């Protein structure tokens, strides 16, 4: 007798928990999406409509706001182009050279290997902000202010990307394969470029996206490097918009500017989300 009652009780409580879980999940999803929905709505509204109060129905001024923003004093298109160049180049260099670093640690045996690996893991979490003073001074001395190099080249030494790729390499790149390539007479550089790199493609893609996004969003360091108006990136223009005399501004343009800086990333993310979400945990926790 007691068994079936227990079963019923259990299924009722599981059912109740499921209902609660759905309610909480739906609430949190709305909490995450609400702001971006509102942003999209507001980027379609004219200044007059914006001051008239909140609505959840899109209006018709999207193209107009876009045109006004382009013709405004803000160098938006140059900003988008600069951000794209810096983020794209960082993603390429960072993944290529991090794969190379991972390859060096994974494939070869040398005296300093353990030391270097340990060292990279230990500095992995130290933020770049703590060396920014020395960084600015050095870049000034090297005459690299108003140059993209200080924002691109440092991404070659990316401990987190390295660690993720090293983890992935352990499970996908058997040393026997490299051995076989050597027997076939392939030199080390060629083996790396034609055998290791293609095998690492899925992991490289995930890391390329992460590097791209964090470079695209980067605000702190670029403000010290990019001083010329037409070299500035999107986050710097956003900050300038905030510090400009706000009330004089056409809010339709402000919302359009935010839309342009956020939605490209959201769209790419939605297309590739499956790979990204499954890749998040791999680099940091597993093992």
């Amino acid at each position: 007798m007691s068994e079936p009652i227990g079963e019923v009780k259990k299924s009722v409580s599981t059912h109740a928990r499921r209902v609660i879980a759905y309610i909480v999940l739906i609430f949190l999803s709305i909490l995450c999406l609400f702001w971006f929905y509102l942003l999209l709505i507001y980027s379609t509204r004219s200044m007059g409509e914006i001051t008239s109060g909140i609505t959840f129905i899109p209006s018709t001024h999207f193209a107009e706001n876009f045109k006004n923003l382009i013709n405004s004093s803000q160098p938006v298109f140059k900003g988008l182009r600069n951000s794209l160049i810096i983020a794209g180049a960082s993603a390429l260099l960072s993944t290529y050279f991090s794969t190379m670093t991972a390859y060096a640690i994974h494939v070869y045996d040398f005296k300093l290997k353990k030391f270097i690996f340990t060292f990279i893991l230990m500095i992995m979490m130290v933020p770049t902000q703590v060396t920014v003073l020395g960084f600015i001074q050095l870049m000034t001395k090297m005459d690299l202010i108003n140059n993209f190099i200080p924002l691109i080249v440092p991404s070659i030494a990316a401990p987190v990307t390295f660690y993720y790729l090293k983890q992935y390499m352990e499970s996908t790149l058997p040393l026997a394969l490299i051995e076989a390539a050597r027997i076939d007479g392939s030199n080390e550089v060629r083996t790396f470029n034609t055998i290791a790199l293609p095998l690492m493609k899925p992991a490289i893609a995930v890391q390329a996206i992460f590097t791209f996004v964090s470079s695209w969003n980067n605000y702190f360091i670029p403000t010290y490097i990019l001083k010329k108006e037409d070299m500035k990136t999107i986050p710097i223009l956003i900050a300038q918009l905030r510090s400009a005399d706000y009330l004089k501004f056409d809010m339709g343009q402000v919302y359009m500017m935010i839309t342009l800086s956020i939605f490209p990333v959201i769209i790419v993310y939605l297309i590739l989300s499956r790979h990204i979400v499954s890749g998040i945990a791999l680099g940091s926790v597993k093992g």
Partner: protein
Amino acid sequence: MAQNQASVAPMGKGKRSKVVRYNKWGYIFLIPFVAVFLVFNLIPLISTFYNSFYENYMDGLTQIGPTFVGFENYKQLFSDANIWKFSANTAIMWVMGFIPQIIVSLLLAQWFSDSRLRLKGSTFFKTVIYMPNLIMASAFSLLFFALFSDSGPINDLLVNKLHILDEPFKFFSSVWGTRGLVAAMNFLMWFGNTTILLMAGIMGIDVSLYEAAEVDGASSWQRFVRITLPLLKPILIYVIITSLIGGIQMFDVPQILTNGTGNPTNSTMTLIMYLNKHLYSKNYGMSGALSVVLFFITGILSLVVYNIMYRKRDKEA
């Protein structure tokens, strides 16, 4: 691996010298990383330390220093009430965001990995809750500034549509209003990421433990407290410390939200915003001292992370 060893064994000595010849390539392939690290990280770190021992700032248009002053900058840094206030601000806003973040993430991670709940659409939910993590923090902050302004959409919603408030709530004139917004944004941006990390941890726990507990009549709460939490401890500590390091770096959100002022009355000024202020006013001595202090704090926290998460792996490698 095993295959590889088998092929090595019979070849004997000639093989070894060949391996040694190849191994110099380990160093060659490390050149880009090491060179970039030395130039763009190590030299700046050393010169930051160097700066912290020199008096070097602009007094109006006159350059003072650089003069060697020993630990004078550090003394000045710690005797100023500001550093304590800004540390407290940073800590308060981090805690306000982190407590809901860790609770919600634990709950969601538990639900997502509970096979008996069989939640539908979990891929959709995970995609949605992770999304804010990729949003440009500065643009997100400008958006919040516009939405929560005194005559903005949120106040309109609260006063005129939902009639919850009688008059607009001035978020950016209220200490807890502004801090609350910073914390809420940090929560939104990070709880999805934490959920996915914790889920990976929970998935790694041996299912038979739960089955055995169930046979013994343990409730779902007991299973969570007695099995999940203790076994999740290393990952929980990892999440807490990495989030703490992230909290110390808090900059973009309060900077844009308050236009760098840290208003109202300096209550949202964080440590990095303070560093930013010193850098802009070209007070290199004080920026140096503050950077070095932050370097040691984050460095020690990093070592803790290294010890829990990576040392074991490292020994195996």
